[in-house]
């Protein structure tokens, strides 16, 4: 039993279960899944579908945080990728051509890779603190997105594009499949290759890693490129889902939610050991929380309060000083009496 509680994923799973259970009380058909027109419907499916962008962004954020960094620019990158895709599709003579839409998607992702390289360059080569380095793109990125869309909300009508965020494949939401594929890819990359080990090593101790011969610079750059690429895909899912590019709404506050998801999943902000499963769970918890708020009927905004409490509790739990102060007091008393 104690082993179960001490498992690193115990608390995230417990929170998720409690959240889902509370839905059972408040809404009767939360757990009903029906098949309509060959698509699966239901609140649970909704959770999966709407978690997709946050899961993607949290994946990239996990890798960045594992190296001891942070990426604030993911929201802006989301906005840019969606904006570019919508702009290019708008220019297509035939927006329903699958090949052309795929090309557009490719172009958007390539642009995001470039932004990732930029972040990585600032952090790894120029040696600027990650928070500050990614702040630059965070500020400028939304401007770039608005520049692309001309400040408008670009609406697109393209059935192949719509599939990304709102389509179904074998009755399952495509966005969910994309997120699942991304999770699988990340797991494969970090656990099937040695990347995960090297990442944890760099995050655990940069000095020791250097002395062990690890090329930390390359790895750091790579991680930011990943984060940007996943954010780009998340941006495409978001914009496809609403069939438009909204430079202000896309990815708004997602960087904070993603960081929260990563921390919820048990990865420490100081870098080192990371848990992909934990981050995915964290992202699902946050999405479920938002959806629960709606189904329970409380204003969505109260979830912010909940998040604030969660962040504070998590940070205090992770803070060695806090533990020492709270639990150390007992220890001190014991030695005094002894």
């Amino acid at each position: 039993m104690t082993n179960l509680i001490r498992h690193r994923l115990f608390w995230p799973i417990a929170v998720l279960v409690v959240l889902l259970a509370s839905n059972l009380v408040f809404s009767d058909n939360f757990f009903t899944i029906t098949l309509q027109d060959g698509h699966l419907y239901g609140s649970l499916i909704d959770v999966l579908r709407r978690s997709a962008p946050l899961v993607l962004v949290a994946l990239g954020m996990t890798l960045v945080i594992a190296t001891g960094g942070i990426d604030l620019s993911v929201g802006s990158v989301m906005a840019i990728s969606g904006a570019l895709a919508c702009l290019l599709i708008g220019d297509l003579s035939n927006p329903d051509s699958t090949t052309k839409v795929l090309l557009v998607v490719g172009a958007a992702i390539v642009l995001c890779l470039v932004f990732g390289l930029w972040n990585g360059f600032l952090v790894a080569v120029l040696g600027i603190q990650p928070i500050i380095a990614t702040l630059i793109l965070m500020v400028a990125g939304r401007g770039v997105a608005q520049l692309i869309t001309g400040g408008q909300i670009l609406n697109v009508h393209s059935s192949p594009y719509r599939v990304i965020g709102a389509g179904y494949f074998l009755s399952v939401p495509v966005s969910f499949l994309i997120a699942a594929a991304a999770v699988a890819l990340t797991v494969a990359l970090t656990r099937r290759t040695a990347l995960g080990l090297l990442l944890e090593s760099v995050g655990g101790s940069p000095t020791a890693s250097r002395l062990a011969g690890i090329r930390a610079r390359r790895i750091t750059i790579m991680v930011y490129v990943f984060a940007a690429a996943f954010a780009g895909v998340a941006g495409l899912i978001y914009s496809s889902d609403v069939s438009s590019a909204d430079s202000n709404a896309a990815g708004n506050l997602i960087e904070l939610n993603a960081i929260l998801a990563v921390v919820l999943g048990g990865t420490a902000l100081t870098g080192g050991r990371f848990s992909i499963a934990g981050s995915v769970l964290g992202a699902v918890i946050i999405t479920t929380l938002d959806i629960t708020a709606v189904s329970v009927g409380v204003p969505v905004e109260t979830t912010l309060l909940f998040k604030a409490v969660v962040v504070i509790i998590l940070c205090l739990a992770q803070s060695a000083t806090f533990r020492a102060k709270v639990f150390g007091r007992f220890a001190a008393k014991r030695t005094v009496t002894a």
Partner: protein
Amino acid sequence: MIDTTTPPTAGPKTRGSGRRIYRPNTRHIPVLATLALLIVMYSVGVYNYDGFGDTQVILNVFVDNAFLLVVAVGMTFVILTGGIDLSVGAVIALTTTVAATLLAAGWPPGVVLPLVLLIGTVIGLGMGSIIHFFKVEPFIATLAGMFLARGLSLLINRNSIPITDDFWTRMAQMRFRFDQGVFISLNVVIALIVVLIAALVLAWTRFGRNVYAIGGNADSALLMGLPVGRTRIAVYTLSGFCASLGGVLYSFYTSSGYSLHGQGLELDAIAAVVIGGVLLTGGSGYVLGTLLGVLVLGLIQTIITFQGDLNSWWTRIVVGILLFAFIVLQRLVTRKAR
């Protein structure tokens, strides 16, 4: 045998190749750069646009950015210690919402005003305490503060609340006129007083010098017997107070309370501080620089308005570029100093 009384002379001799030679103060370079930038921008404006040279154009930059200036002053203190405060935008929202709600409920302004100022101060005090006592990273602690403040204000009211209170209206409409059509608002006067006090505190008091010392090297400051913890908490408290004062000015400026006020304002404040030449790692910079930074941001907007065919998103892009330029400049300056 070799004379062993003498330590190796090779070391210190060559290491101190620049010894006893006065080096020009590198810390002024960023501020001077900002000043030069401001002058160039203003000249370009005057040269290109009719009516740009009017005194009121410059004064309007002050009028429109007074609240930002106050917030940025608080942020300056925080950044000088090497910290960051993400909660300021949310605190503004909370301040305006609480003020508007209480005023609408008929509370006397004489009670409401100190109360809302207290709210921000208390939030700042709380964040500072968590940062100091539990060694939680400022980024995370103030992120929690941001969620908390934003969540609270949304919980109070999700809609914009107009302020019709007499006192508030009088304050909002108070003008100090110099000439026909040349005026500043009360907000500007308050903001400038805040700047003045802050500059004096930083330059002439022990507290101010401790702020710099902590930013220069917190460990040393502790060993030198400076009250590091107290100063650090005070700095976040001060930033919280400035944010709520900024919120009050914002409610004068907009005559409303709204839970979505001040979104992304923390970024503007950070940008202004950085462009104003304050080192993001702490220990170097001036409130006067922050003032210049705010003016640069304001002037960018003014130029874009005058240009007409340029769109507002250019502001963000230009701010991003300036951020980049100044961060790289800081990197170079600090590298040279070592």
